[in-house]
């Protein structure tokens, strides 16, 4: 059995993964964004120069650019462990969240028992729990992955539970009439209704997991973005500090772009919900 999902689809049925900027509108939006960014940088530079703000306090964009070009090998080297930790944390956190969400949707008792636990996990201050995780999991990559995973867990859980439930009742009715099994209902109806919600959550957690990895590195590391941030702060090396912050942002934005592309590639029907 199959259900026509193309109803309401407006875009051309071409592979959409490569068409991030499909319309002139999007190109204009990009242009305007670049203009805004450039203007901000110019104003920032002017303030630094005019008010003679010392570099150790806030570096000018040119200082940061200098630090980026000078320390590029260092920044790239530091990015590798952080990306690795964030990636595995992202996988772990979201996989667990999805499994828990499914169990919640199919078992009311489980949800009643463990939803409060999930909320409790969300409210744990990560900075406070990090040293404990280090003692439990050791000094390697593991505590960093778990911290990144903890941060990813909750948004995905909440959104996917909502998504799995946000099924059109008529569709469920239809499935029942067609005597579909529970598995069929799940794979052919619930997953589709949940995917837009899940992707909204993934977009949040993909940026958060980088933050988690950095917090993880603050409990003890000799490589990674978190380590570089610390050492630069300790040295009052503001240009390199800003260059490292920039690197962390680039990692998060790249992750966001990848998830957005996957979303466009996977969700080809009109989900009918705002994202």
């Amino acid at each position, binding site marked *: 059995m199959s259900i026509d999902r193309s109803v309401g689809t407006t875009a051309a049925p071409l592979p959409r993964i490569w068409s991030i900027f499909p319309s002139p509108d999007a190109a204009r939006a990009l242009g305007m964004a670049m203009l805004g960014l450039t203007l901000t940088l110019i104003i920032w530079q002017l303030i630094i120069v005019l008010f003679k703000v010392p570099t150790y*306090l806030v570096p000018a964009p040119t200082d940061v650019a200098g630090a980026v070009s000078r320390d590029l090998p260092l920044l790239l080297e530091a990015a590798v462990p952080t990306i690795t930790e964030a990636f595995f944390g992202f996988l772990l956190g979201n996989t667990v969240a999805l499994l828990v969400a499914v169990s919640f949707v199919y078992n009311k008792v489980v949800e009643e028992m463990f939803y409060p636990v999930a909320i409790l996990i969300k409210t744990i201050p990560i900075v406070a729990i990090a*040293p404990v995780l280090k003692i439990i999991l050791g000094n390697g990559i593991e505590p960093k992955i778990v911290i990144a995973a903890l941060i990813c867990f909750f948004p995905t859980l909440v959104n996917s539970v909502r998504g799995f439930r946000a099924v059109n009742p008529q569709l469920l009715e239809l499935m029942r009439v067609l005597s579909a099994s529970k598995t069929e209902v799940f794979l052919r109806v619930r997953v589709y209704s949940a995917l837009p919600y899940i992707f909204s959550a993934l977009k949040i957690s993909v940026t958060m997991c980088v933050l988690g990895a950095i917090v993880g590195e603050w409990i003890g590391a000799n*490589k990674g973005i978190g*380590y570089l941030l*610390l*050492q630069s702060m*300790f*040295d*009052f*090396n503001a240009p390199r500090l800003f260059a490292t912050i920039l690197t962390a942002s680039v990692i998060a934005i790249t992750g966001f772009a990848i998830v957005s592309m996957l979303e466009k590639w996977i969700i080809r029907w009109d989900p009918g919900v705002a994202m």
Partner: protein
Amino acid sequence: MISRRSLLAAASIMPLASLGLGGVVPAHAQQKQVKLQLAWLYNAASAGEIVALKKGYFTEKGLDVEILPGGPNSNTVQEALSGVAQIATTYAPEIMYGANQGLPIKTFGAAFQKAPLTFYSLGEANIKTVADWKGKRIGAGQGATAQVKAVLDHSGLKFEDITFIQAQIPGLLQDQVDVVASWPTNVAQNAPVLQHAGGYNTQSIWDNGLQFQSNYYIARTDLIESDSDMLAKFLEACDKGWAYAADNPEEAIDMVASMSSAIEKDKELASLKVIVADFIYTDETREHGFANISKDRWNATLQTYARIGEIKPELTADDVFDDRVLVAAQRTKR
């Protein structure tokens, strides 16, 4: 007598050893695994330990040491307690708070003979003594309020007489505080103050009634009691490492840099020179040897901390310090 089997085993290991460990003494079967948890990142303050690792001084003593970096979120007392590391480095207040909670942790040596914490102010402010702090804005790290209290208490002032602000050197330069705490070992970070046209004044905690030491080696009390021999060997290797770092500071910093890519060698070199000259080697190490700890100083510090209400008054030096490792170790007098 060497058996045929062990000879064969040795022969099969040798090519591996020459491949992987080129130049380094191969680890013997009886090598003891030891983890050292640092309180901070790899830098000049841990140069002696890193040199001991890189030059194979730990291996010579039969120890297979792994040095773990710390950071601002790292709690080394807890890590030594839980067994994540057998040995950790930490600062005096952490040891006192641990003893105050009855935690089975003690120090057995102190790499830094004097705690470096010093308060800097610009010349124009004309703050010559701690008594001049009255009504001023005092900046320090969040964890340093007890030290500020102790120093104030020594000069007959109260914490309420000042305004405490969490700040670092830039805060002083931006006129957010009148006095700011820093380590004189951070030569490069303090440079804007040291080069200030109007001069600067300093008050160290050491000269103002708080004579504790720093970068203490700590371990669980049961480990100190059961294996002081291993800890003595560890201390001897650190001793040798620091001596080498003192004689070859450039090479020592190269070794530190090989373990942490982000340090700036020139800054760390300047820092190491001050650390070695003023903090690792003092009159007391000349008389008693490396990493020496004085019980009288501990008692005085504990009394001070009890007086300002940070710890309970019944604690003595024996609650925070075990001298058997210092006694057992062959230490350089320098």
